[in-house]
């Protein structure tokens, strides 16, 4: 870092009128600093070019494309079932929720009836994935801010979810579990019982983790009043998910446009309160995610009570051909709203699959928030919007 900034006003200089101040002395150069692409705090391969004035960020420009894998283009060359492994790989921390939007869109266009048990399983697994994803956020965010052990606690719980998913679907991260018309495998009673036990221990653990991290005075000092994204800014940029809800605006697609079984389930929309600082700061976004996990567990418990026996796959033809036309379907993912725009020309392969990712929007908000933040606070802000670069670049 360069020496003390020359252009920042000294107290004594205030007596001078602006005209009397030597203009050349006021000028100073900004130091360009590359954050990433291999920076642990950027959660993947995001490169942010920041112009720093000593410790203060003057400008931040994110550069994307380091994880671009042509997902959308490649989807045009495989059949409708073959797209699911690709959408899995977008947001690899919440693959189930990525599949869900795609599968819903195709089902709606085909007019396939999904069996009730499959719908219940989808909600249970989707909400478990949300918990797993938020746990990952909790752990990595604590690492960003210098605490290591919360990461290990979070992974211990996340491991139980992943183990369950491995038994259900066969894979630990990239599941290919939701199929067009239902789900791949049925869950056994003992597995459902294990989920119930997990919900109970998780409720206890979440309270413990919140008292360990969220109520910690160092954590509050690092996150409260930092990286404020108010409601107006969020709406201007089109932010969704915990970032928007953290600014105090209650919008959740599960309530606004209920898909699957969400209209029958009872849960609350969590919004930021601004309890520790200003509304819409990093602490609020953290808090929204922590409380959302409790809501997810509440939803899972309701589903476990209501689940009924039956088939898990609806009747779908062997070769799927969508009718000519297009559809847009968006779902509430752990990181925000994810939309799929599928265009079909009547063939067995999609004509176009366009993904509207929430993380992409959130990365776009960084240059707006960054000016005036300290470098360490900028890291805290990037962590708090919880981006996954696989979803940004696709």
């Amino acid at each position, binding site marked *: 870092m360069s020496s003390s900034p020359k252009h920042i006003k000294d107290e004594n200089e205030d007596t001078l009128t602006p005209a009397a101040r030597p203009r050349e002395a006021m000028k100073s150069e900004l130091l360009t600093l590359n954050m990433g692409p291999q920076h642990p705090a950027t959660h993947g391969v995001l490169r942010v070019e920041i112009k720093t004035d000593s410790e203060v960020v003057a400008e931040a420009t994110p550069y994307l494309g380091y994880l671009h894998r042509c997902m959308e283009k490649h989807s045009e060359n495989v059949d409708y079932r073959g797209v699911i492994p690709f959408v899995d790989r977008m947001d690899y921390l919440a693959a189930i929720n990525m599949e869900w939007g795609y599968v819903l869109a195709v089902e709606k266009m085909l007019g396939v009836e999904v069996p009730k048990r499959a719908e219940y399983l989808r909600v249970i697994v989707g909400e478990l994935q949300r918990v797993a994803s938020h746990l990952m956020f909790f752990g990595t965010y604590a690492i960003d801010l210098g605490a290591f052990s919360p990461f290990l606690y979070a992974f211990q719980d996340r491991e139980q979810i992943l183990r369950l998913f491995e*038994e259900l679907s066969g894979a630990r991260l990239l599941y*290919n579990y939701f199929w067009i018309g239902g789900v791949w495998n049925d869950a056994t009673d003992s597995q459902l019982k294990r989920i119930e036990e997990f919900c109970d221990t998780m409720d206890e653990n979440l309270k413990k983790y919140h008292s360990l991290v969220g109520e*910690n005075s160092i954590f509050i000092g690092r996150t409260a009043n930092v990286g404020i994204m108010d409601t107006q800014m969020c709406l201007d940029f089109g932010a969704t998910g915990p970032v928007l809800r953290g600014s105090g605006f209650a919008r959740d697609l599960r309530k606004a446009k209920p898909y699957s079984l969400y209209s029958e389930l009872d849960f609350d929309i969590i919004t930021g309160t601004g309890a520790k600082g200003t509304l819409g700061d990093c602490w609020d976004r953290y808090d929204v995610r922590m409380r959302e996990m409790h809501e997810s567990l509440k939803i899972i418990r309701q589903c476990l009570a209501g689940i009924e026996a039956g088939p898990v796959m609806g009747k779908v033809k062997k070769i799927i051909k969508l009718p000519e036309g297009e559809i847009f379907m968006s779902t509430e993912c752990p990181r925000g709203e994810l939309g799929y725009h599928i265009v079909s020309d009547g063939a067995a392969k999609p004509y176009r699959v366009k993904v509207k990712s929430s993380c992409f929007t959130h990365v776009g908000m960084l240059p707006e928030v960054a000016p005036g*933040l300290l470098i360490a606070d900028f890291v805290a802000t990037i962590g708090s919007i919880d981006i996954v670069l696989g979803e940004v670049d696709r």
Partner: protein
Amino acid sequence: MSTPTISQESKAHYIVQEPLTLTGWFRNVFGAIKSVTTGMGITFKYIYGVKPVSIEYPEVREVLPENSRSRLFNDVENCISCLQCANACPVDCIYITAVKRGADAPKIKTKDGTPIRLDLVQYTIDTALCCYCGLCTTVCPTECLTHTTDYEFASYTIGDMKYDYLAPDIRAWRHRIVK
């Protein structure tokens, strides 16, 4: 290109903090003590109360669940060369060559009674390309192509990852894998 400088309005993001009062100072001290005691309390519980969950890998090996999707295995004895797996594969990593069986050749059947009309000449899977999505195993009509629970198959060259399932050494896995 002109060098950008900090504009005045960008500093508006700073929240002006209130000056520290005496009660504020005591509140800070109390908050710090409280945070440290709760944090340390939880940590100490983990030292003695919680048993370790890490698996010491080479000595202890985790048993994967039954339907875990790991290395693919094709039981060529039961394969009817229908090409459905190759068509379903989203990354095109299955290479199959088959020729028509002669009319006078002895009639053979798979284990479940499906007649084999094509002679398999080549059945190769490029495991390095495979994305373990499991779409090929679900379309297999004779269920000869399966995911196994083998997960230790690193190799020195990428060419070694191409498995020719007609080769005798890979056929020998059958005794270990197929129950």
